[in-house]
């Protein structure tokens, strides 16, 4: 029974959030769009002006741009593969009856709460350092040559770090979904003589499918904009070997002051994110109707 009065009150209560988010979304993005058609360099303003689509054309002609998009996608896909498969396995393991389950959960979830610069620097220096890292200690123990992770496999190193940060998230979400699986259904399947694999394939996996979708979508949003991990480890190098799109935009905008190119990169990033968002919204929206 909404009266006219409560309805206008509701609108009044919603206004601050809506206005703030609207301004936050529209104003800077409009600037970026405008800059993306300009040549604009605060250090060298003589050649500034409208340049049409030439900033965007760089994405075809400049190998750094293409590589950054490729790297962005490699990071997303590789981390998703590791965390979803690993997360399912870990969730299945943690769902078993065991001693100290609460404590195990706390240990597993912890990396998620580690701020990105700490995670990246700890892995870079304590674990993967070619001289003092734990991996180097292990390699020497087995009489092997330690690997120079960030020099030779920069993108793989970053994928390992980011996957370590997100594996707990995937595990936690999938475990939550797993625990809501009806125990009686499991028992019935067991009584019917269904083995572990067929139970997993026909009962558990379909039950987790929505949680898996949610994990993939939410992680993709964050993985598209991995930044601090690259900044404090490889700084995008060697060359552009570990530069993703956000990092390239940052370099162009704040280090080289090529604002036009940076803005075009930003718009491409928005388009990429929108493709993902389209699917994300549909999945989350479905849940709202229930």
């Amino acid at each position, binding site marked *: 029974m909404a009266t006219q009065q409560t309805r206008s009150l509701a609108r009044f209560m*919603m206004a*601050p959030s809506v206005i703030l988010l609207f301004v936050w979304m529209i104003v800077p993005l409009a600037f970026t769009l405008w800059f993306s058609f300009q040549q604009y360099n605060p250090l060298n303003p003589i050649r500034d002006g409208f340049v049409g689509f030439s900033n965007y054309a760089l994405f075809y002609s400049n190998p750094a741009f293409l590589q950054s998009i490729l790297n962005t996608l490699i990071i997303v896909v590789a981390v998703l593969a590791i965390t979803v498969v690993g997360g399912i396995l870990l969730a299945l393991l943690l769902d078993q009856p065991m001693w100290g389950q609460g404590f195990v959960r706390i240990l597993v979830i912890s990396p998620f709460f580690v701020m*990105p610069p700490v995670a990246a620097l700890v892995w870079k220096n304590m674990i993967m350092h070619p001289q003092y890292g734990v991996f180097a200690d292990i390699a020497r123990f087995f009489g092997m040559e330690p690997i120079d992770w960030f020099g030779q496999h920069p993108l793989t190193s970053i994928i390992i770090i980011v996957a370590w940060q997100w594996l707990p998230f995937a595990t936690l979400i999938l475990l939550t979904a797993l625990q809501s699986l009806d125990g009686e259904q499991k028992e019935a399947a067991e009584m019917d003589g269904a083995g572990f694999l067929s139970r997993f394939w026909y009962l558990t996996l379909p039950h987790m499918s929505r949680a898996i979708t949610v994990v993939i979508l939410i992680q993709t949003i964050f993985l598209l*904009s991995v930044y601090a991990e690259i900044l404090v480890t490889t700084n995008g190098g060697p060359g552009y070997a570990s530069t993703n799109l956000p990092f390239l935009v940052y370099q162009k905008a704040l280090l080289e002051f090529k604002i036009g190119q940076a803005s075009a990169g930003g718009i491409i990033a928005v388009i990429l994110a929108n493709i993902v968002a389209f699917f994300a919204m549909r999945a989350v929206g479905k849940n709202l109707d229930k």
Partner: protein
Amino acid sequence: MARAVTTRHKTIATAAAWIAALLIFFPILYTIITSFKSEQEAIQGFSLIPSGTLESYSEVQAQSGYFKFFLNSVILSVGSTVLALVVAVPAAWSMAFSPTRRTKDILMWMLSTKMMPAVAVLFPIYLIFRDTGLLDSRIGLTIMLMLINLPIVVWMLYTYFREIPGEILEAARMDGASLWNEIIHVLTPMAVPGIASTMLLNIILAWNEAFWTIRLTTTDAAPLTAFISSFSSPQGLFWAKLSAASTLAIAPILIMGWFSQKQLVRGLTFGAVK
């Protein structure tokens, strides 16, 4: 559940789970251990037993004024969370209790703003901050963190508020309670747990935000994310100091995080997984 669990099964599961958990936790554990070593010890090869010295901790404070960054992290994460709650509580409230045809669209639209990549607006925001003198200011960054987390806060509050039964509202109205009375005496007590959970998760997210906090600060407003990033160029022997600084930076949020596992699932999946 009448499922018979053999002790053998349980033993194997326990062993496997503990090994997996310790491997995942190892980088954090090793950081904590190394923080109690001296710099010389830290590079002398793998060892899980530190000498227990606290010299790295005192050096981190003495050399770089760790406490200032810690204070900035606290101010920014708590400040932005409180600000977001002030704006979001009324919005989530009205959406949960007087929904209109457009409520769902507005919620989805809010969520979509969260999907805008930060780099896309890096330069305009940088310009706006520079020209308004907000660069490297706590106020500017607090507003920034508030804006990026606002959609999650509205969403989380909305999913909590929606679970408050509407009949209680009706009953209060029948008794002639005014709208404000209704909010203050009937609904607020039921909403407090949801607001507290939202607050906890949002402080964690703001504390760990590592794009704007690094790019929009230099010294005055720099929180721990920016401070730790300054360790990216090695300064001689710094393993123990890095470990001490890292341990201090993650400890408070790690402990908060352990208590917020449920809220985390709910908040970050926008209520899709509970």
